[in-house]
């Protein structure tokens, strides 16, 4: 089992290393970050340097979540598109193990990038002679948890639909869309228009908001930490809650992905 996992992980890491699509994705992200970092080089004050560094850290973390989602999406969709899974499952390598290896490899790469970004942030803090904030570690951990959740969710979507449709689905059908729709319906209702259809829609949007995976499930409680990079001892449990949410989402996505993988025509 261990040997099989190792063999699959090695193959997935080679895929990540050689995927031109992922490389292009990463280069675009880096280019955008570098462009946004240019003003910091010319920043006159330490405060401006801190704000700039915080901005870069935040941008990189945001990109990391999108990139991690891409890791999961591309890995699954490329294997399904190339129809090479029949070579794997006609060997004594069960789908449970292969799927687990895809999750582990994508999460591993995401963790590596996460650590790299954190290291860059620390270096920037030291170079800018600004105080190293504990919030950096918190935000990094929170971003990692969000990345894990997004990897799992996109892997599941890639298993059941075309990758382009999966991306469009995530962009359109996300919790904030339904939250805004729910607010809109509530506003219409409070303006005096009451009908059964509006009530049904209000409930429907609410349930969609509750069911769809969130990138940052505790954003209200942690937004201040992301903004100031300062974290109080009482706020640390939120990082663990985020990880718990991400792991639950991963477990659910894994089970659903496995269900669909075993029913897919792999010929």
């Amino acid at each position: 089992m261990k040997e099989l996992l190792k063999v699959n992980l090695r193959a997935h890491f080679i895929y990540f290393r050689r995927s031109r699509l992922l490389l292009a994705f990463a280069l675009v992200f880096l280019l955008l970050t570098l462009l946004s970092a240019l003003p910091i080089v010319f920043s006159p004050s330490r405060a401006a340097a801190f704000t700039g560094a915080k901005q870069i850290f935040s941008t990189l973390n945001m990109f990391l979540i999108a990139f991690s989602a891409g890791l999961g999406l591309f890995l699954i969709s490329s294997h399904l598109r190339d129809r090479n899974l029949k070579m794997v499952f006609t060997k004594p390598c069960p789908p449970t193990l292969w799927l687990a290896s895809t999750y582990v490899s994508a999460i591993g790469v995401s963790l590596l990038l996460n650590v790299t970004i954190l290291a860059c942030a620390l270096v920037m803090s030291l170079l800018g002679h600004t105080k190293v904030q504990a919030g950096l570690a918190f935000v990094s951990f929170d971003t990692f948890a969000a990345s894990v959740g997004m990897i799992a969710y996109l892997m599941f979507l890639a298993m059941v639909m075309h990758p382009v449709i999966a991306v469009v689905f995530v962009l359109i059908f996300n919790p904030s869309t339904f939250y805004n729709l729910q607010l809109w319906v509530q506003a219409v209702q409070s303006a005096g228009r009451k009908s059964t259809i509006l009530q049904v829609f209000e409930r429907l949007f609410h349930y969609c908001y509750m069911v769809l995976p969130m990138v940052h499930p505790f954003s209200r409680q942690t937004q201040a930490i992301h903004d100031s990079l300062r974290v109080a001892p009482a706020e640390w449990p939120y990082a663990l809650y985020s990880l718990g949410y991400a792991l639950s989402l991963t477990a659910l996505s894994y089970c659903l992905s496995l269900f669909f993988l075993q029913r897919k025509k792999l010929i």
Partner: protein
Amino acid sequence: MIVAENLSVHFRRGLLGPPIKALDGLSLHVAEGDFFALVGQNGAGKSTAMYCFLGLLRPKAGRLRVMGKVPELGSKLYGSVAFLPEEPHYDLYLTVEEAVRYYAGLYGKSLPAKTIPDVLERLGLAEFKTLPLAKCSKGMKQKVGIAQCLIHPATLVFLDEPTRGLDPIIVRFFREVLREIHQRGATIVMNSHVLSEIEMLANRVAIIEKGRTIAHDTLENLMHLEQETYDVAFETNGDAPEWVSVQARQGCVVRGAIPAARLRDFMEFACQPGYRLLECSLKKATLEESFIKILREKAP
């Protein structure tokens, strides 16, 4: 080794499209040590049958046992199975050597260090071992497929159109490899349109048409379905007997064929004065002729 009874597989084109019967009550039996060939026209259901045997497709109805077990994806059953697909659907981001190592590694057993380099050398892939599969020709990808089949000594080997896209030298080498694997005691199940190749290798053949087995016998029995005839040529100034099917007549030389049962009559006829026997040879029946005859007679 493989028992398939009344297997049915239906595909649907689109969500609302009518179901297409890929297999419609297919039954066959592959015994241990057989070199079994599945023969049929395009779309007859040969590959679908093989995918069912490999567990890649679940039959809608019927009973299927491979080595006494229901084939399940990635089960331990595959520890002694090798499969060469028709299309080179491999992990194209890997190099030749990485791919062979990866597929060999999926058996979960450690190999002696020299096994993979030896197999690559034997198939002429050693000098291309660092070439990504995406840049390999179809023939080279097929060789990679053959290599991953040879790495572990399998007891059941599935080959789906194995020689498609290969050059004659490697086809010949591949045939020798298959004979070697078969002589070692492995059971081989092969799909192929190259009937001459099946004649050279297989000992049992199933002819499939529209998802059903219309003939299932030893190669010898199937080839004797085509009535034996003799090709004859003789000189005469008169007419040929009615049981000689004349194919050509050049002056007084007649060329044709006679049924084997008429050989004695023909010899007596040819020994008459005014007649001269030029040629009389047994025409060997081919699988191709038997295949066409069976299709004409038994196709549903």
